[in-house]
């Protein structure tokens, strides 16, 4: 850790995985000894071919794997500044999810109104005050650059929005609860180029307030938006560095092969 700080003197580590191993219930080991820092107010992109474990790794950060019996974590993910190991059995996964929110691959709004979708995280946290909810919903929708498009129809069903709007709604939902880290699991893979561009611009603004960890299939996307890039292959972290370094001057041959399209 000291070593990493020397390398990037101005960066603060928001979270880091130490010797993280993960196995699914059927016994397949999906992650092998992953050590990766997530820097505060930076975007860290996880790239790699399908099945390399990048989504599995992402879903460790909000203990999504706990929903299914038999999955096994080993190692730790430390969340700073309080040094909580979020994989610790004694740490409630709900507490973790209240601090770290997630946007999924396929837009997955609830079949409720736009307003209720955004307000849901706050309702779960016991917020009942109408004015607080109204303000927070507006703030989150503005943060997700969706406010102007939906302000006149907040009580319409979320399903009536377009795919790109639905995904921004999901971002607003994840944003409304002021998370410390936001996880994005290939958030634009189901969207057209314009909706993708909107969301990329959005993320660039979001990192002012929080830290972002994003899984992407699209290398150009990783190059465009991220500050750090991690290349994973077969459950292992092959290379992690500043994005421009990984893309222009990778240390490992495998990374170079993947980035230049010779492989994957």
């Amino acid at each position: 850790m000291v070593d990493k700080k020397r390398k990037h003197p101005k960066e603060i580590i928001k979270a880091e995985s130490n010797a993280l191993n993960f196995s699914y219930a059927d016994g397949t080991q999906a992650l092998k000894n992953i050590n990766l820092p997530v820097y505060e107010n930076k975007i860290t992109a996880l790239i790699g071919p399908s099945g390399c474990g990048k989504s599995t790794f992402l879903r460790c950060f909000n203990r999504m794997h706990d929903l299914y019996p038999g999955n096994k974590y080993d190692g730790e993910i430390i969340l700073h500044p309080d040094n909580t190991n979020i994989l610790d059995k004694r740490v409630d996964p709900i507490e973790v999810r209240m601090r770290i929110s997630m946007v999924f691959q396929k837009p997955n709004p609830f079949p409720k109104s736009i307003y209720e979708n955004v307000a849901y995280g706050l309702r779960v946290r016991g917020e009942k005050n109408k004015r607080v909810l109204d303000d927070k919903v507006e703030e989150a929708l503005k943060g997700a650059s969706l406010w102007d498009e939906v302000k006149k129809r907040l009580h319409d069903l979320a399903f009536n929005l377009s795919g790109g709007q639905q995904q921004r709604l999901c971002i607003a939902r994840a944003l409304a609860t002021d998370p410390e880290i936001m996880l994005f699991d290939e958030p634009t893979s189901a969207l057209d180029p314009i909706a993708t561009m909107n969301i990329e611009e959005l993320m660039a603004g979001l990192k002012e307030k929080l830290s972002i960890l994003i899984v992407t299939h699209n290398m150009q996307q990783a190059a465009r938006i991220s500050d750090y890039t991690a290349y994973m292959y077969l459950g292992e972290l092959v290379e992690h560095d500043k994005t421009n370094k990984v893309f222009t001057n990778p240390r490992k041959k495998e990374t170079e092969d993947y980035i230049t399209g010779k492989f994957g």
Partner: protein
Amino acid sequence: MVNDKKAEIENNLTRIRSLITKHKRHDHIFAGVGMFIIISLTITLLVLFLDLVFDGYPRFNLDFLTNFPSRRATAAGILSAWVGSALVLIVTFFAAVPLGIAAGVYLEEYAKKNWFSDLIEINVTNLAGVPSIIYGLLALGLFVYGFGLGQTILTAGLTLALLMLPIVIVATREAIRAIPIHIREAAYAVGATKWQVSLHHVIQYSYGGILTGVIIGMARAIGETAPVITIGALTFIAFLPPSPVGLEPPFINFEWLEAGFTVLPIQMFNWISRPQMAFHVNAAATGAIIILLTLLMNGLAIKIRYNIRKKIKW
């Protein structure tokens, strides 16, 4: 050379076309057989229904609904029977629905998948197929004598609830399974507990399927005769149970739960077993009403399912 190629293509085309015709024959045969079966079933039901309607036609008036049974067939009505059926169904509804939904949610959302949950699953599915007379005997032993509830509306309601419970549980579980995993994950990801996910999402999105199951279960319960006879429903009853709602405080009373009763199918059974033909007219009229109620309930179930499917598309 060019002609050769053309001939070859035409040759090939003829072969493909005859092949398609052959394959399509299966489509037509299956569609024909299916249509034949559906039409003959529908016609059978329609003929039965119309037969009842024609036979019972002289009794289709308001008096038939507002009169008690009588020794004179023309003066006899089904007042005590339909009121009894309605009250029994109210008990059935309030007993089976909360319990059935809770059981379905528990089995889908909470229960760990192991040999024990498999055992429960097999049992629930089995219960749906147990002959209703068995439920009647069970209820006679348990509710009437074991709990001392007597031969009352409460007992009948609970008995039919037993019958309906597996239908509600199975419908609830199927409706819950139709909710996509990513919606569930979205709710967990914002920090919801299992209870919140069940209450705010799972139950709300499976509402249509559950309601369909409930209505179909009720439609089955309304026509059930054997278990109600087994627990000792009366066959001739010329009074109404105490009214559930009153004009004086506390406006609601529960004395009706302990009243004796009869239900529509029993009233019908009673009349059909009389030697006088005049009573058979009453039976036919009652039968037509039962079928109509069942059709209405099932129609409602289909309508609700259709509306909800239109609203929620995953």
